[in-house]
């Protein structure tokens, strides 16, 4: 019973902040709504027994990525960009029906899906130890590739962001 209440509170927070993100025009409000959304999703991870991922979510997303977003918004000041008449209003009016259609399709797939384990979840395994063991044995190669990806991203960003001609 209490898990349902917690789930519905977190789900309402997640959906409400997502709606706030897409409906508010000001991008800085969007970034702050994204923080609320990421926090409530971290709560959902806790409910699902993934404590390490909840912590990683808060540290990486709500910490690092949000600082990056807020910094970029402050540098660019794009708050005044979305004013004036919309030159592509006709195309943009298609977005609500397309979003609703995708939502309906996904809900249909979820409702009709077979092979899903019915009922309550099995007792949570000792996830953190199992996660670490799996990460450093079976998924060691993708794990190391991730570090190469992050290095490549870092070098690419430095290359993009330096002053021209220097």
């Amino acid at each position, binding site marked *: 019973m209490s898990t349902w209440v917690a789930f519905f509170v977190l*789900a309402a927070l*997640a*959906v409400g902040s*997502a709606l706030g*993100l*897409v409906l508010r025009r000001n*991008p800085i409000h969007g970034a702050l709504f*994204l923080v609320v*959304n*990421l926090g409530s*999703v971290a709560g*959902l*991870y806790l*409910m*699902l*027994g*993934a404590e390490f*991922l909840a912590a*990683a979510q808060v540290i990486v*997303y709500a910490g*690092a*990525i949000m600082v*990056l*977003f807020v910094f*970029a918004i402050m*540098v*660019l000041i*794009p708050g005044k*960009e*979305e004013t004036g008449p919309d030159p*592509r209003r006709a195309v*943009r009016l298609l*977005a*609500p029906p*397309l*979003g*609703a259609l*995708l*939502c309906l399709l*996904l*809900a249909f797939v*979820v409702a009709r*899906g077979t092979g899903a384990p019915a009922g*309550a*979840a099995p007792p949570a395994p000792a*996830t953190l130890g*199992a*996660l670490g063991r799996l*990460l450093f044995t079976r*998924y060691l190669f*993708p794990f190391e590739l*991730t570090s190469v*990806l*992050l290095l490549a*991203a*870092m070098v*690419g*960003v430095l290359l*993009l*962001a330096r002053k021209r001609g220097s």
Partner: protein
Amino acid sequence: MSLGAYLTLAALVFAIGLFGVLTRRNAVGILLGIELMLNAVNINLVAFARFHGDVAGLVFTLFTIAITVAEVAVGLAIVIVIFRVRRTVDADRLDLLRG
């Protein structure tokens, strides 16, 4: 709690993210919508990992988070460079490659 509840929530958040990507005019807003969609995918992966009792889903979620960080860093750097050159972040006006 059932698996379907989590999957429905993730579908809802994913569709809202798609709506945001389609309606936003400035590039930073589009990146925010993409964040929302990736987050919905993560909910799915963690829910599957829990209800199937398979920890591999959590490993995939970790990889998704790392890839998202790289995507946001590179994406925002590109937006800043575009702003430096064109003085705009309006995605509608960035149509140099239009045929």
